[in-house]
Structures are given as C-alpha cells and as structure tokens.
C-alpha cells in the first residue's frame, strides 16, 4: 500500500518538471523559428500522450490517427472559412466530431487484434485522407486550404510567442489528464487488458468498452492538436492526413517509450527536432534518420524514457 503514494509523488514530480521546462524554455528560444519548433513539439506531444494511452496502456495499435487529426483540422478549417463559424465553436464541433467518428468506427474495428487492427486503422486513415484530397471543392484538394486565426475570449491568438503558451498549457493539461486517467480504475482496467484480455474479462473488465474508451480518448487528443495546428499554421494540406503521418506519430510514442506518458512527450520532442538538426546532412538525411530509428529500437526496445529511467534506478542503488 505504501508504494502508491510514492508513485503518485513521482508522477507529480514529473509533471512539475514538465511545467518547469515549459516555463524556462523561452530563455533558450532566441528567435521565432525556435518558438515554431517548440510549438510543433508541443502539438505533437499532445497527440502522442493520447496515443500512448491506446498503444502503451490498452495495448491496441493504431496506424490511422492522422485521420482523426486531419478530420478535426479540416472540420475546423471548413466551418470557419467556408461557413463563417466563430473559431471557438468550430473547434468544439471539430473535436467532437472526430471523437464521434472514433466511437462509431471504434466499436467494430476494436474487435480485431494485432496486425488486423493495424490494417483496419490504416485503412480508416487512408479512407479519410483520400476523401480530403479528392473533395477539393470543400477542402482545397492536395494544395490545401487557408485557415483563419483562432480567437480566445475575443482576443485573436497571433504570433509564436502567444501560441507557445497556449500549446504549453494545453500540453500540461493533456499530461495531467493522462496521468490521472492511468491512476484511475479505468487505467488499471486498461493495463489489465494489455496483460491478458481473457484474464481481464474474468476479473470483470469489459474489454470492448475500455478499448473503445481508450480509442476515443486518443482520437480526441489527436483532434485537439489537429485543430490547434490548423489555426496556428493558418494553412492545412492533406499531407497531415496520410498514413505516413500516422506512422510518424506511432514512432514518436514507441521511440519515447510505450506506457510512459513522459516518454511520449520526449519521443515527440526528439522526432520533431531531429529533421531540423539533420538538414545539414542534405542527401544523407533520410538514410541517417532511418538508421537512428532502427538502432534506437534495436538497442533500446522499450524506448528512451523507460530505458533511461531503469538505468537511473540501477545507478541509485
């Protein structure tokens, strides 16, 4: 019994570190380009924290989350720019609709297991991305569409420095929600599922219900980031809906460390900043990126944060 409060403390400790990093990071951000990268890290991290609930805790893979991300981004974009909705209302509807789609398709899809689930989610993502790229009269097609800026309580959000704090706060909220969820009975049910579905069922957990719940929550996290990205960037293209983006998101989660919320954040940070660092390699960039990915996963199969955490724990002993 005494283990739990300590663990809880460690979690709060982690959250405190995250808040501190977000608060102090601007000291190192000397121009708007650095802010831009930091904002992208934050937005990706929000998706990954959600996706980690599904992959890391519920043990269900999804190769289609870019679909939810883009669905919400485009819903926001279309409602605001084509129908003149206020961005706030559009944001709520966009996130809600992504969640609804996840709920509707989640029930049949989550009956599938392993690679079959991977295929089904992949197919779902591809369907969404083709529809977006094809319906060019509404979505602007492959060339994308412009998105009006977001306003908060009547103040338009503009500029990297404002957005940095918006995304920072959203990320902290996302992490806090995820940590609480994991510590709740829902979280324990999810982890039971990951271990053995049958055993969980025997223990009275309805696997389907919890799987769908994790699926919807992760889709909503992706949707939040998607809508925010659209408004922040002011422009959106179907590239963000493709399965390559879905795979990128999963890679962030796995690289950072599955079943580790902070791992998801670290994974997002590493994979978002890496391409900016690798530009110096020019033609070798793609090859080095692939090699780094492979080597990390071969030698740190559990991901960055859990492996480093374990090493740290050993060292303390």
């Amino acid at each position, binding site marked *: 019994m005494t283990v739990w409060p300590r663990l809880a403390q460690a979690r709060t400790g982690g959250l405190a570190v995250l808040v501190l990093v977000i608060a102090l990071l601007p000291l190192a951000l000397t*121009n*708007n*380009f*650095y802010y*831009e*990268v930091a904002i*992208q890290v934050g937005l990706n991290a929000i998706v990954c924290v959600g996706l980690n609930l599904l992959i890391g805790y519920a043990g269900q893979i999804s190769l289609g989350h870019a679909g939810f991300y883009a669905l919400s981004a485009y819903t926001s974009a279309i409602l605001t720019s084509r129908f003149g909705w206020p961005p706030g209302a559009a944001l709520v509807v966009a996130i809600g609709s992504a969640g609804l789609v996840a709920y509707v398709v989640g029930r049949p899809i989550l009956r599938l297991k392993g690679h079959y689930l991977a295929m089904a989610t992949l197919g779902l993502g591809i369907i969404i991305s*083709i529809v977006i*790229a*094809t319906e*060019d009269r509404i979505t602007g*097609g*492959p*060339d*994308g569409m*412009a998105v009006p800026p977001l306003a908060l309580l009547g103040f338009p959000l503009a500029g990297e420095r404002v957005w940095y704090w918006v995304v920072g706060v959203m990320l902290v909220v996302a992490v806090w929600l995820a940590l609480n969820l994991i510590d709740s009975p829902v979280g324990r049910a999810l982890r039971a599922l990951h271990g053995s579905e049958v055993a969980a069922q025997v223990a009275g957990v309805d696997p389907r219900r919890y799987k769908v719940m994790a699926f919807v929550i992760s889709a909503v996290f992706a949707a939040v980031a998607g809508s925010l990205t659209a408004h922040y*960037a*002011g*422009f*959106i*293209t179907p*590239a*963000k809906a493709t399965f390559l983006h879905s795979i990128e998101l999963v890679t962030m989660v796995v690289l950072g460390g599955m079943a580790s919320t902070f791992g998801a954040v670290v994974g997002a940070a590493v994979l978002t900043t890496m*391409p*900016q660092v690798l*530009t110096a390699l*020019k033609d070798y*960039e*793609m090859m080095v990126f692939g090699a780094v990915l492979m080597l990390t996963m071969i030698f740190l199969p559990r991901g960055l944060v859990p492996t480093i955490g374990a090493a740290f724990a050993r060292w303390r002993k």
Partner: protein
Amino acid sequence: MMVRSTLKYLAPAAFAACLTLGAGVASAQEPIKIGAFLAVTGPAAFLGDPEQKTLEMYVDKINAAGGVLGRKLQLISYDSGGDAEKARTFAKRLIEQDKVDAIIGGSTTGETMAVVPLVEQAGIPFISLAGAVVVIEPVKKWVFKTPHTDRMACEKIFVDMQERKISKIALISGPGGFDKSMRAECLKVAPKYKIEILADETYGAGDTDMTAQLTKIKNTPGVQAVLNAGFGSGPAIVTKNYRQVGVPFPFYQSHGVASKEYIKLSGGAADGVRLPAAALLVADKLPDSDPQKKVVVDYKNAYAERWKSDVSTFGGHAYDGLWLLVDAMKKAGTTDKAKVRDALENTKGFMGTAGVVNMSPTDHMGLDLTAFRMLVIKNGDWELGN
C-alpha cells in the same frame, strides 16, 4: 592574388568566414543570402531536384564572376519533401534564423501557399516556382512566380484544339495539386473556347495502371481528343496505356511532362503527343532569329555539362527566379527588401527560359500565351508543333 584565392576558398563557407574573420578581411563583405525551400525529395522530387541543381550551379557561376553588387551570393537551401507544413517551418527558419535577403522556392502550389502569409508578414521578396494561378491571383505584395500558370496551359491547348477543329474532349487527371488545379482551370476556361468536356476521369497516387479509365474514355461516344493533366510518373503510364487500349483520338499532355524523362519512360508510346511547353525544350531547333534562343541554349548546355543529365523546364523556373532576383538587386542597387521588391515588380523585357517577362503591379508573373510553344513528340524528341 592572395586575397582572391582566399576568397574563393571561403566562398562555400562564407557564413563561417564571417564568424571567424569578421571585419578582419576588408573586402569580405557579408554575402547576399538567398534562401530556398524545394521539394528535393518526395513525390515532387523531379521538380525540386533540377531546381536545386540549377540554383547551386548558377550561384557558383555568379560568385565566380564576382558576385552581385560586389558581394558574393550564399545559397541556403532546405528540402521540404513537398510537404507544406515542412515548407512553412523552413521558410520561418530562413526568415527568422538565417535572415535571408530573398526567398526562391515552393516547388509545389501547396508549399507556396502555406508560406505566403509568412513572407507577406515578414516583408521579404519571394519568387515561387509553383504553377497554379492562385499563387499570383489575387496579387500578393511580396509574392512573384516564374512558371506559366496552369490556366495558360489549358488556354494554349484549347486554342490548338480549335485550330484542329476539335470541340469535344475527355479529361484524365492525376491526384497531385498540379493535376487537380489544372483540371479545375481547364473546366473553367473550356466554355470560352467552346470546348465540351464529355468525360472527366482521374487516377490515384502511386497507381500503376490506368487502362480502366482509358477504356471508359475510349467508349464514351463523341470524344475527339484526350487531355491528360498531370506530372510525375502518372502521365507516362497513361501514355503507355493509351496506346495499349488503342484510344484512337489525338492525345494532349500538359507542360507538367516537359522533361525528356517523360519520353523515355513512355517508350515509343509518346510519339504524336502534343503539349504546350517553354522554348527550352526545343532550344536547338529554334530559328537563330528567335530572341530566346541564346538564353535557353546557354542554360541547356551549362546544365548538361555540370550535371550530365537532360535539362527540364522545371530547373528553368529556378533559373528564371534566380536571375530575376539578381537583376532586381542590381537595378535596385541594394538588397533592401522593399526596393528589391519594387524592382522585381518593374521587371520589363527580361528574357528567361519561360519566355519574356513583363511584370506589373497587377501581374506578378509577367508571361503571356506567346511564352508557350505547342510541341509535338516525334521519334522520341520534341518538335515545334506549328
């Protein structure tokens, strides 16, 4: 002599030179920084790759000849992979971190449009290499472009069809931004040329066979000609399938296939295909009296010599962009962004690979239909069509 050889050594690493030497070398003024973001990899690599090579080659040439305004040029180039989001980030990097004096780039329309708000806000001259009309319509203060628009391509093709008494056609287009935009423009301007579009087929990304769509077109009653709007490997497959299925009508392609690669990829199937393209492709076949001849022959030979590969009109867009910019800087006598922009807007009679450029406050491209030549493919080579 000593100073010059030092400079030559430093030119590629001019930035480092400035840091280490600072004002120590009197003549080592800060270079003029030209930023570029291009789709060097990814599905639009056949645009970005020759663009990148062209920029590299001419920045070297210009520097070897003494630079611009007595200063060297420094090219800072990023690979966007054709992704608009990446393009936007790199544009921000060019503006905020690299502090470039002007930007050339945006191989595709999506990349360009994602970057437009940034350059407008930052107030920096930006020459786009993308095709669609939306880039310059409506006119944006800081945005210019060098390629012909897709609307012009449609018009040129429709004029040619009219001359050949064709009025009912089928359209087949690909999944890319270029394809879709051109399809939309063609549908829009078709009535003006009394062209009726009876079938409107498409194919998807990475598709390896279009016989199904072409069979449908072949069996559509009344069709007199077929137009394929697309670029990349798609049109080559369409061309092969076109002959396979045995579609009997005249076949038009767009300026999107304007590279020798298309002919090679289609095998013999491309013979007889008509398309609008810049004079660059038929450089050697232009009459000596053609004022464009010297520019295009020089560029073609220089490119072939340096990169051992055939020239494409896509690299030509980058050539035009760089020289327009250099011209404007020389005319403005400074790299002051607002003055360079004004000079760009006042470009008159500039002879590029795409044609004669006459910009104005209402036209940030400055090309007209005469810039396009109607070409026909014969025996695996381009010929002037009329």
